[in-house]
């Protein structure tokens, strides 16, 4: 029996309705949205539109046009950063960003001479926002992960957004690890841009994702090309979402994402979160009983996402992950998790760590078996 505990990379399994929505679209519709004027093409339009509406509902956005589809969170963050930042701008970010945020920022540092400032963190990975107002001085964009894929820490977006908006600084957040598994409300906590990916907590197919952009905010485009409408102009249209969505969409993926969002809204994000908290509690309690094992991040399940990174003294984390797979059939991820910044923070930048990331379909038994296996390996 195989146990999948790498939901932080991508969620598995997907709800059955997601798989059937993809094949149903491919078999029975197959048209490109936003272009043709025949009924099936218009049905494809409606499918894309309904997917935007479900995302509005899930994220608290008001208008479907504020949801821009991309191929993943990485593309969304590239669009947000490259479309917004001007030469000499100054960005405040965290010390635990994923490379999807960190590398575009570093590139902008080289190419547009932007300044990058990082919010310091406590050793358990929590952002230290006590002196936030000082760090915000002169900043033109706050760009922070909503939840770390290594430490599991959740960024206090409400406090950061309130402080940033007091100084009229917009806030971009990377919700790759939180969308679908953690409550988000871009209206209640007025986020200006929110990047999400469709294939992790949102339970959709890979190759789907998006960027929420607050109404009234216009970004430069990352790509130009056909948008279906206003074709005689040599320039992209000014109105979202078409402005940012040049090229034929991943409509197969969006058909799946539509089904996934329907599944999540039915299940309820609060219930999904509660399930993950319960499993995380068990996981942390179990890991605590294993000698010479150290896990990273907050010790309370309520204060973190359903993912936990750990190391066992004297054990190479890559070997631990390999053994878990080959001898126990348990899939976890080792290494730096594309987030060397976060590992630097934990002091694990040279060895990495083993990361267990839970999903909605995991059960208590999965956690029990993992704990037994890790105990064996550590003994």
């Amino acid at each position, binding site marked *: 029996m195989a146990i999948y505990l790498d939901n932080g990379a991508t969620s598995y399994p997907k709800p059955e309705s997601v798989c059937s929505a993809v094949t149903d679209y491919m078999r029975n519709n197959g048209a490109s949205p936003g272009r043709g004027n025949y009924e099936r093409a218009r049905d494809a339009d409606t499918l894309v539109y309904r997917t935007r509406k479900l995302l509005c509902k899930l994220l608290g956005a008001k208008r479907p046009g504020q949801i821009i589809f991309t191929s993943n969170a990485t593309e969304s963050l590239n669009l947000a950063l490259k479309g917004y930042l001007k030469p000499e701008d100054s960005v405040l970010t965290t010390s635990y960003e994923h490379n999807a945020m960190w590398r575009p920022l570093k590139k902008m540092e080289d190419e547009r001479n932007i300044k990058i400032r990082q919010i310091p963190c406590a050793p358990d990975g929590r952002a230290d926002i006590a002196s936030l107002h000082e760090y915000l001085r002169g900043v033109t964009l706050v760009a922070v992960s909503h939840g770390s894929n290594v430490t599991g820490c959740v960024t206090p977006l409400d406090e950061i957004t309130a402080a940033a908006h007091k100084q009229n600084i917009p806030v971009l957040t990377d919700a790759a690890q939180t969308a679908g598994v953690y409550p988000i409300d871009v209206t209640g906590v007025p986020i200006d841009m929110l990047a999400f990916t469709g294939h992790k907590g949102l339970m959709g197919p890979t190759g789907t994702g998006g960027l929420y952009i607050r109404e009234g905010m216009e970004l430069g485009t990352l790509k130009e090309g056909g948008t279906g409408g*206003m074709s005689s102009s040599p320039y992209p249209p000014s109105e979202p979402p078409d402005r940012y969505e040049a090229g034929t969409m991943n409509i197969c993926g969006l058909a799946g994402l539509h089904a996934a969002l329907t599944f999540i809204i039915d299940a309820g994000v609060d219930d999904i979160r509660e399930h993950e908290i319960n499993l995380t509690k068990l996981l942390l309690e179990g890991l605590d009983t294993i000698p010479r094992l150290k896990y990273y991040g907050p010790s309370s399940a309520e204060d973190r996402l359903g993912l936990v990174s750990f190391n066992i003294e004297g054990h190479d984390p890559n070997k631990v992950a390999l053994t878990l797979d080959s001898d126990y059939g348990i899939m976890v991820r080792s290494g730096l998790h594309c987030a060397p910044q976060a590992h630097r923070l934990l002091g694990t930048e040279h060895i990495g760590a083993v990361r267990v990331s839970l999903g909605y379909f995991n059960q208590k038994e999965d956690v029990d078996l993992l704990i037994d296996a890790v105990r064996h390996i550590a003994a």
Partner: protein
Amino acid sequence: MFLKSIKILDIDVCVRQRSTFASHTRASVDVSEVMPYLNGILKGADYNKEADSIKFIQNHVEITMIKDQINVAKFANRTELLELLDWVQDLVNDTYESMSELTPLYTAQHRPSVMTIYSLLPKTNCRKCGEKSCMAFAARLYKLEVEISDCGPLAEEPYTANRDKLNNVFA
């Protein structure tokens, strides 16, 4: 539910600009009976009892209803069109549900002449509205092809009092 669905019959493709984007749709029911109530609540709507038609503007988009036809023009893209049709469906259904509390208006709303509108505009011909002159803007406002807010200068002093007057005459 009174109006169960609105089916898109066509969407103008390959268009130049917002002003030429148009779509014809068919409502699942004839919405004529709701029109006088819509006329009673929608500011500046153009209702014609004989033709069972009503025309109004929402967020720059032109909507014309004739019996079970709903024509939409000047939307920016298909997302906006679909969003608008959802809005129209909710509006018609909410109005239908509340008909007993609402007052129908069977006559055309009082509309000022082009000259009256012109007299309330800044008359600077600044072209910020995209029209060649304030007179051209007045003519289009009369036909409900533009909105009062499309004249930016009206939102600034010393014109806000005139803007309020315009809002009142279109109310």
